[in-house]
Every structure is written in C-alpha cells, then in structure tokens.
C-alpha cells in the first residue's frame, strides 16, 4: 500500500538517498537498519514529509503523492514516533495527544476538557496505558511518554480514511528490557490498526520484530531480508551493513594489557555523595579500564561526576594523582588532567555551531594562546592531526560539529580530551546511540588510551561491553559498592556473576 520508487535525495555535496525502492503492506512491520550516515534518518524524514525527494515517486495505494510538510503526510496516515521525544513536557497528556487538533472539542469557542479527557482515555487504551489523561507529561516515566507518543500518532486512525503507516525511530534506546518486551507485544497487536517501520541500532530487536528488513549502506538499500529467508541472521546483516564481520574480537579483548598497579591515578576513600551514594572507595591505576556497573540510578553516574568535580562529596577523601581534592569544580579536575565524555553528547559533549577545531581546543584554550591571544594556526594543525588519527569523517577542521554524525561527534569529544593530554578519562555511555562501526572505533580508542597509560572509568552501555572492555568491574547497587571483579582476558566474569550483585 505504501511504496517508494527509485527515490532520490541530494544535499549540497552529498547524495543522501540513491534510487531507493521500498514498500510496505498493510499490517506489516518493516525493519530499517544501517550504520549512522547510511541514510536511514534522511529516508525517514522523506517518508514522514519533513524532506521532499528530488527524484522518484511516493505511492500510496498506487497513487503518487507529494508532501510539503509532516502535517500533510499525517493527513495521508503517516505518523512518526520520535526518538527524541516530541511531547511538550509542561502540557498534560491529553493536551499533547490532541495538540493541533483541539478543534473537535471546542464548543462555542471553549474547549470541553471532559470530552477531551474521555477521548484521550480511549487513545491511551489502545496502547494499554492506564494513566489519568490530565497528568502533566513531565511526571511520566520515559517509557510511559513513549507510549503516549504512540497513542498520539494512533489518533490518526480516527482522522484518516486510509491505512496508517507509523514510523518508530529508535523506540527502544531508552527503555529497559521489560519495557522493550511490552512495547514489542503492543506493536504486534497494533498491526491490525497500522503498519510499522521500525528503526533501531539493536539488531536482535529488529530481527525479532520485523517481517522484512531493509539494509541500508551509503544511501542505498543493499539488501532486503525476509523473515525466515536466506541471510536472516544478525551476523550476516551486520556484515552487509558495515561490510565486515563482527566477530569475537569485537571488544578488542586480545588487546587488553595488564595495567600498572604502582601508579594510582584516582583514589576514593569512603566518599559520601549527596543522595544515597555512600562510602565509596576505589582506586584507578594507570592503564586501567575500570567499569562501574549497576542499574540506572544505582549511583554509577554520581561517582563519575564526583571525580569530575561536578558533584561535591559530603564526606570521605578523593585523591587525584596523589593530590587531595578539597574544592570540587570541573575546572580544577580538567587542570589535573581529567577528561569527561558525557552521555548527553548534544548538551555536554560538543557545541553545535562551532567547528571541529574550536570544539577540540575548547578545554585547553590556555595551551593554545599566548597572553590570551589564540594561535589559530596551531589549533587547526592539531585538529587536522586528530581528524587523521581517529579518521573523523569531516570535510575539514572547519566543519560544523553539529552536522557530523554521532560517531564522529564522539570522536571529536575524545580527541578534545586526548589532545589536551588528559590521562584520566571518564566515559559515560560513550557508545550510546552509535552504530556498530562507530562503536568499534570507540573500543579501539579505549584500548589505545589504556595502552598509553590513561586510566579510564567507564559506565558502559551494556554489560557485555563492560565485561569485554574492562580490567576491573565495580558493581554498584543502591549507592554502595557491592563487589569488585578482576577481569583478566580469558577469565572474565559472566553476565550472571554481575547480575547477581546488581539486582
């Protein structure tokens, strides 16, 4: 029913989509996978009407259509559930659901809230969410908000005659395991109401949910895999995506070398933090990858932020390179050679609008200036060097960081600290939202840093990642250290070992 025929999209200098053929039938779930920069998001944007194609056709039930904006696409039954959630946090759930479509509840110029609440309740029932529709959205959990978003898109059902196509952009990236299962169950039930296009980085999820998977690479569909057909296993799909195998050496375990126990970089003794994190004692050595493992809210991030000086302990002692820290500020930690790669790349990682070299030297402007006058030529040379070293994909050091892909942004952030000579690196979910290729690059960089004697504190995205990468794992639960594991290659703890102490 929905079809794309040899669709083309060009941006200045980039041929983003090349002759894409795509179709989805009523009640189907179609997966869309590809590395960052493969053209997934551009394709999504064309489908939901944010971009207009430069060539090819969009057909709905055989008729060619053209959308000038997302609203027109919605009127043809194409809805989008955004990855960055698009609900307005200070409005109530029902106001969000009917945002822009309040007219149906208006009597004599006044909104009939009761009627809207009733209608919202009906929409929420579709996604099996039992909450009061007059709750302010910011009070909901992430998973709940995702469902509200889905409910909002499902209002199209009443508004549109034809069939619905709903795009799910990375819907699972912020959900826990149970929540993901609930969502999948729901989507499977909802196929009676709509067709779904599902985009995710997690191959297992795409495999589990989709009837058909489109594999994209460099703006082209390189393969279409039917469920149960040939090549329908994660490894071969990943191979097509990146053009290489993801094998057992994924986490570069063979490159893991013992750390230097004689050089202690960070020493926490009996640190108490605001909140419930108490009595944290740990040591980070040169060349060590120390992984903090725990559930969300267990206190892993708090420990990280304390080392970086963004959180002041209420008790205990922190020594960085043998020097006792008395006042806590990022400024001081940076001065001691601490680098921080935050989880929220867009908020704390890079400045969009500033170019690559400006971002890289931001934390070390002192080094690149004499009497506070910048030596731009040296800055640019440094940036060029790191662009080459980390093979950052940017047309030059003058490229706007906001336009780089997630992986390349992350490389810029890492380069920023490494080029400044930071030898204590704090990595908070450094691979979050990255595709496999970019993840591997990050793993490679972690190993290289560790070889160079940098001490790394890592909060990993997955347990596998934590086990694969670390020399030492510290399990945190409810703000306390539960257990410390040594992870010698070949004798690493299992997932089960860790889970036992986490939950």
């Amino acid at each position, binding site marked *: 029913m929905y079809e794309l025929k040899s669709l083309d999209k060009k941006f*200045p200098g980039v041929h983003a989509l090349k002759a894409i053929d795509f179709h989805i039938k009523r009640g189907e779930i179609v997966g869309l996978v590809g590395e960052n920069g493969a053209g997934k998001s551009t394709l999504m944007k064309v489908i939901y009407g944010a971009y207009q194609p430069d060539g090819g056709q969009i057909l709905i039930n055989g008729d060619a259509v053209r959308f000038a904006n997302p609203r027109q696409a919605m009127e043809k039954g194409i809805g989008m559930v955004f990855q960055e959630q698009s609900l307005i946090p200070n409005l109530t759930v029902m106001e969000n659901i009917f945002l822009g479509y309040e007219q149906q509840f208006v009597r004599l110029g006044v909104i009939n809230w009761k009627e809207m609440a009733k209608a919202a309740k009906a929409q929420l029932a579709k996604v099996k969410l039992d909450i009061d529709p007059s709750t302010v959205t910011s009070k909901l959990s992430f998973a709940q908000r995702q469902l509200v978003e889905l409910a909002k898109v499902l209002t199209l059902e009443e508004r549109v005659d034809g069939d619905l196509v709903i795009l799910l952009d990375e819907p699972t990236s912020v959900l826990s395991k149970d929540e993901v299962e609930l969502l999948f169950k729901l989507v499977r039930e909802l196929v009676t109401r709509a067709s779904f296009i599902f985009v995710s980085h997690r191959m297992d999820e795409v495999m589990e949910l989709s009837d058909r998977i489109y594999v994209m690479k460099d703006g082209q569909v390189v393969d279409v895999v039917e469920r149960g057909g040939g090549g329908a296993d994660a490894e071969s799909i990943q191979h097509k995506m990146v053009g290489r195998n993801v094998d057992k050496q994924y986490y570069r375990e063979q490159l893991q070398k013992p750390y230097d126990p004689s050089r202690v970089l960070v020493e926490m003794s009996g640190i108490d933090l605001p909140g419930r994190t108490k009595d944290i004692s740990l040591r980070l050595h040169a060349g060590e990858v120390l992984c903090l493992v725990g559930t969300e809210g267990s206190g892993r991030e708090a420990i990280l932020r304390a080392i970086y000086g963004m959180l002041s302990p209420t008790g205990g002692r922190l020594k960085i390179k043998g020097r006792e820290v008395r006042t806590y500020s*990022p*400024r001081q930690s*940076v001065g001691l050679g601490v680098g921080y790669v935050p989880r929220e790349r867009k908020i704390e990682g890079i*400045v969009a*609008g*500033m170019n690559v070299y*400006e971002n890289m030297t931001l934390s070390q402007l002192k080094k690149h*200036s004499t009497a506070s006058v910048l030596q731009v030529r040296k800055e640019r040379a440094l940036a060029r060097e790191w662009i080459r070293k980390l093979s950052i994909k940017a047309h030059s050091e003058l490229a706007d960081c906001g336009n780089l892909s997630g992986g390349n942004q992350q490389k810029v952030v890492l380069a920023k600290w490494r080029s400044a000579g930071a030898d204590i690196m704090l990595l908070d979910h450094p691979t979050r939202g990255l595709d496999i290729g970019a993840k591997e690059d990050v793993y490679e960089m972690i190993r290289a840093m560790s070889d160079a004697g940098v001490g790394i504190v890592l909060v990993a995205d997955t347990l596998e990642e934590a086990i694969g990468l670390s020399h030492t794992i510290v399990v945190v639960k409810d703000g306390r250290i539960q257990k410390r594991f040594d992870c010698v290659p070949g004798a690493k703890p299992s997932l089960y070992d860790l889970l036992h102490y986490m939950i």
Partner: protein
Amino acid sequence: MTRPISRETLIKWAPLLVLIALVIFFTVLNPTFFSARNFARIASASAPALMVAVGVTFIIIMGSIDLSMEGVISLTAVLFSFAFIKLGGTLLGTAWLALPLILIIGGLIGFLNGLVHVKLRVPSFMASLAMGFVGTGAAILITGGDIVRVSDPAFRGLLTVRWLGFPLMVYVAAVFLIVAWFIQEHTRLGRNFYAVGGGEELAHASGLDVSRVRIAGFALAGVFYAIAAVLVVARIGQAESVTGSNFMFVSITSVVVGGVALWGGIGGVWNALIGVLIVGVINNGMVVIGLPDFLQDGVLGLLVILAVVLSTDRKLVSFVK
C-alpha cells in the same frame, strides 16, 4: 557553470544585500543620497551606535541580553565631561587622562552589571535594565539636570577634522571595531563567548569558568559603551542625563538586523557593523527624501521589521520568542 546559491550563503550575505538594496532605494528617490558628503554624515552618526552595537553583540553571542546601554552611556558621558573639564579642559593638556579613565569606569559599571547578573542570579535582561536606570539616575544626580559642555577644539576635532572626507571619530570607531573583531576571533575570551552561547552546560563541562566569562563579557560591553559615550560627547559637544537615550533601540535593532542570533552562538561584530549601517541608512535616507518628521519614527519601525524579515534566518527556530 551556474550553480544555485546555497541557502547558507544567502543567509550569510542577506544583511549586506539588504544594505545595498536600501542604498539603491534611497538613491533612486533622491540622487544626492549617494554622495561622499552624505556617507560621511551617515558614518559619523553611526559611529557611536556602532560601538554600542559591538558591545552588546558580545553579550548576545553569549545568549544573554544587555539593556543597560542608555544609562551607562549617559553616566559615562557625564563623568567623562566632568573629568575632562577638571583635568584642564583641553586634550593638549592633561585632560586626555579622562579618556582611559572613562574606559575603566565603563568597564567597572559593566563588571558590576555582570556581578549582579551572575552572582545574584538575576536574569541578564532584568539586571542590565535595572543597572541602566541606576546609570541614568546617577547621571541626573551628578549633573543636577544640567548640561555639561565640552568645547575643547582639539577634542571636538574628532568631529571637525576630516580625513578623506570622513571625521576622525569614524576612524576611531573603525579601529575599535577591528579591536573587537580581534577579540572575537583571536582571543580566548572571544572563543569562550561562542562556547557559552552555543552550549553553556558544555562550556562548564569543558572546564570553562562560565561565570567569569559572563562577567568579563559585561565588563567588555561596558568599555565599548564608554567609547560610544566619548564619541557622542565629541559629536554634540555636551553631555547630560539623556545623552544615552535611543541607543537601546538602535543598537539591539542593529545587531538583530545584522544577523546576530538572539539565542546566542551565531554572528559577530561584522554583523553588528552591517546592522548599524542599515539602521543608519534608513534614518538618514528618510531625512534625505524629505519624509516629514512626525512620520519618521513609525516608518523606521516598519522598515526595521522589513529588514529583519529579509536579513535574518528565522527558519532555524520553530518558535520565535
């Protein structure tokens, strides 16, 4: 090969195109507009406004706003005039000391402004607006409502001595514009302004002392307001408590028309220059084509809206607050 001009290029140059269009427009209506004499007039009228606009550009790049300019200019103009007279009253004597002195005072007022904003955590909008009123009030207090005249010929030479047809004050403004550009492009402080405007949390997480950058920004703006005050006194030969009036509208408008984004991080002193010239050309053009006095303010307002529409990129923001 003909290549369609990209959106970005167009946006970048839009303010300049608007300026050129305005010049052509007024020249067509009255050819005397396009003369060296008239350009000199526009330039000398714009010189003080340019200094104010440059000062406030730094603040806007940081994503803040400074509305203290009117009070600061009045106060520094009055203080400058008093100091100048007290120190002998002629530039050829010791009265030149009043120049560095007033720049320092301007900086101090800005510094205070920044302190109130950062340390007391008052929004910059409110802190600076209040500081502006304090400035005006102080100026009234000092002058007792009188006008202070500065008639030293050497000092007024800034206006009367011409070089290539333009008064000296135009060159003074040009020099400080270049200084501002240097600060923007080639100093840590300038880079830090962009970092704070582009992402304050990130700047903090990169180990920048954001408070210090902000306070420094306000102090720097204060210095530029003081320069503006000196140029105003040179231009009209007197200072009083209303010397600074009108500069708020002119400078903020210029900065926005010139293409500096009010949400921070985008634009720079060249945008301020183009913006000031746009507003200057509109102001002057209306006189040259003989628009009645009582219509000028209204028309200026309308033309400014038109100029903003034509010269700024509003597509980036879905909601213009």
